[in-house]
């Protein structure tokens, strides 16, 4: 049977073939191993931060000291020694480059290998005059920011968080930690203490950001935790679409990635946040790979505001990630569209939280989990309605697809309605790629791998359609690549 054969081949999955497994040798400047108030101060000083920022970090650090790692997720890994990690590294070569010409050629070559040549990004894929700005984060420091002028004309601020701390302190003070507070959870607290860099976006009132904003970043230092901090604010009536994508080089050691993303949408504003995550998943015995412990949360603070998360998760050894929406404003709307693919020994525990606080709020969750190899894939989601959230509405659909019989798919929905007017719907399915489907595709001329890629792309179609055009084609390819090992 074709699917038995598929299972057989999955056993021989060779994740060593991981396409983006390479390293570059740009020199780094790093802080000594371990974490202490001194290290926090070192990071803050390196970045030339004002006292208030250092105080904010130190408060987070002190909270973190009293916290313990969350244990409720369905993931297993050896205990992390947080004193055995580096918390800061930055590519040498200063001052900051003024244009692409000043960027380290070695770095440009890395992007080349990733298939993300910056030059190409400037006029990405020829999509009708569309331009994608890149705030490229290499390891921890933003190395280059493009299209600033065009954005500036629209009044949009798009820069690194470090720069925002220096140039726009009022905005940072007002919004940083307002969605994910320093003490929110263990990893968010850690991030707040040691975050190295990330993106900052502010879109002013009644402004539609003239282009998709995009960040590509990757981990590139041995045993360096990567602590990204992203803050996006859409003021009243504003709209912004933000794309985040990443790949990571091959490693033996586990790498910790604990990012925090905060989104704030004021009255009538809309934020669309899309992620393609392709960190190194570990080798074929399940050694190494990135631990992706991320806190992403959006606050629909204003009336009629909308936040939409779309994620394509194919990499990382362990994913612990729940992009959420707080539906605070009346009539606000939250959306979560997810494709999570796990293969080899990957473990995914991901989902969302839709917290309905305002009246007539609505939310929609479409989750597609694909498990292959010996992986474990869990959807964990919370939909809750506060007492005052009259007429809250949610629709949730969780579909799981299994490839082979050594993997697992789990769905853990939590539903809490404190108002009788809430209307929550939940649908869930679990299926396998059938031998009939494989044979049908192959009898039409598709190879096994092409057949699996086609069937899986069909399975995730509803979510794929939510991605910006230029991400869609890339993602379809990535799905094929992610499952390449699964059929030989």
């Amino acid at each position, binding site marked *: *049977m*074709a699917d*038995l*054969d598929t299972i057989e081949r999955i056993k021989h999955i060779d994740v060593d073939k991981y396409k983006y497994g390479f390293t570059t040798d740009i020199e780094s400047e790093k802080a000594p191993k371990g974490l202490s108030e001194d290290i926090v101060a070192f990071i803050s000083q390196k970045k030339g931060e004002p006292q208030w920022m250092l105080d904010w970090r130190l408060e987070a650090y002190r909270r973190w000291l009293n916290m313990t790692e969350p244990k409720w997720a369905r993931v297993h890994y050896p205990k992390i020694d947080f004193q055995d990690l580096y918390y800061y590294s930055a590519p040498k070569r200063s001052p900051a480059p003024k244009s692409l010409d000043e960027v380290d050629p070695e770095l440009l070559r890395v992007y080349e290998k990733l298939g993300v040549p910056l030059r190409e990004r400037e006029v990405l894929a020829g999509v009708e005059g569309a331009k994608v700005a890149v705030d490229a984060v290499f390891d921890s420091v933003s190395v280059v920011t493009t299209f600033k002028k065009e954005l500036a004309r629209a009044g949009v601020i798009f820069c690194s968080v470090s720069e925002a701390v220096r140039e726009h302190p009022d905005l940072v003070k007002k919004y940083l930690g307002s969605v994910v507070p320093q003490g929110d959870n263990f990893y968010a607290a850690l991030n707040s203490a040691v975050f190295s860099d990330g993106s900052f976006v502010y879109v002013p009132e009644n402004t539609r950001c003239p282009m998709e904003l995009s960040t590509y970043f990757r981990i590139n230092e041995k045993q360096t935790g990567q602590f990204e901090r992203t803050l996006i604010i859409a003021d009243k009536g504003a709209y912004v679409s933000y794309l985040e994508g990443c790949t990571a080089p091959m490693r033996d050691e586990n790498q910790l990635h604990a990012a925090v993303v905060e989104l704030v949408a004021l009255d009538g504003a809309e934020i669309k946040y899309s992620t393609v995550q392709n960190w190194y998943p570990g080798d074929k015995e399940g050694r190494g790979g990135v631990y992706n412990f991320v806190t992403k949360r959006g606050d629909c603070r204003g009336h009629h505001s909308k936040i939409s998360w779309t994620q394509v998760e194919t990499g990382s050894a362990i994913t612990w990630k729940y992009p959420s929406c707080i539906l605070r404003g009346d009539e606000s709307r939250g959306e979560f569209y997810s494709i999570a693919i796990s293969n080899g020994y990957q473990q995914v525990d991901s989902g969302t939280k839709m917290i309905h606080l305002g009246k007539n709020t609505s939310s929609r969750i479409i989750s597609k989990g694909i498990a292959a190899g010996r992986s474990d894939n869990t959807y964990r989601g919370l939909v809750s309605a506060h007492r005052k959230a009259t007429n809250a509405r949610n629709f949730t659909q969780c579909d799981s697809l299994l490839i082979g019989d050594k993997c697992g798919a789990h769905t853990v929905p939590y539903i809490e309605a404190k108002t009788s007017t809430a209307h929550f719907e939940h649908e869930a399915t679990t299926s396998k790629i*059938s*031998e*009939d*489907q494989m*044979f*049908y*595709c*192959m*009898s*039409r*001329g*598709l*190879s*096994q791998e*092409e057949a699996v890629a*086609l*069937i899986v*792309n*069909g*399975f*995730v*179609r*509803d979510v794929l359609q939510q991605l910006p055009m230029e991400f869609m084609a890339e993602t379809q390819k990535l799905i094929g690549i992610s499952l390449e090992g699964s059929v030989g």
Partner: protein
Amino acid sequence: MLKIENLHATVDGRSILNGVDLEVNSGEVHAIMGPNGSGKSTLSYVLAGRKGYEVTEGSVAYRGEDLLTLEPNERAARGLFLAFQYPIEIPGVVTMQFLKVALNAQRKARGEPELSTPDFMRLVRDRAAKLRIDLDMLKRSVNVGFSGGEKKRAEILQMAVLEPSLCILDETDSGLDIDALRIVADGVNALRSPDRAMVVITHYQRLLQYIVPDRVHVLSRGRIVRSGDKSLALELEEKGYASFERDAA
């Protein structure tokens, strides 16, 4: 084009085909008739290369090449096409896209350049018009929510686009009313050509009123027990399969 000799095959250890001999030449249409369980579908799956259908003896040569060592997709690229009795649903995959991926996979395997989207669209429009098939059907997911008649017509359209040399139609008439049957048969007839052979597998003589075969074979208990011209189908209809089974015993 196709030469089957002494073909034996088992499914789950049960022997289903017990020495089938059959030769089909270019331009010919052969009908294989037989009662339920005689091995008709098994024969079509063995020819298309379905896993689990194990050949224990005999050979199948297709244009002089050993067909049995090839993967199903390799057989397709060499021009073999199986129209399924029960076409399979593939949710989320638009039929048009499916056809394009299939055609280009075959072209790639044959070392031909892939068709661009406009060229492909022209080809599909042309074929669909000839078969009087509405293109709207192709915007839907493969076979999902299709009626029985639509599924069979979609199979015939796939056949027309992929332009195979050897078409195997597995009970294409099953589940069709007389109007749908006529539409499908017209489609098949439109594809008859001197360099294309067809093997039409059917339970009833009915289909053969519309697709007139050059040869008719009666399959019983995994063997071809009688062959003849189209009049054999009428004789079968009259006498029933039972008399042939007695002959075979």
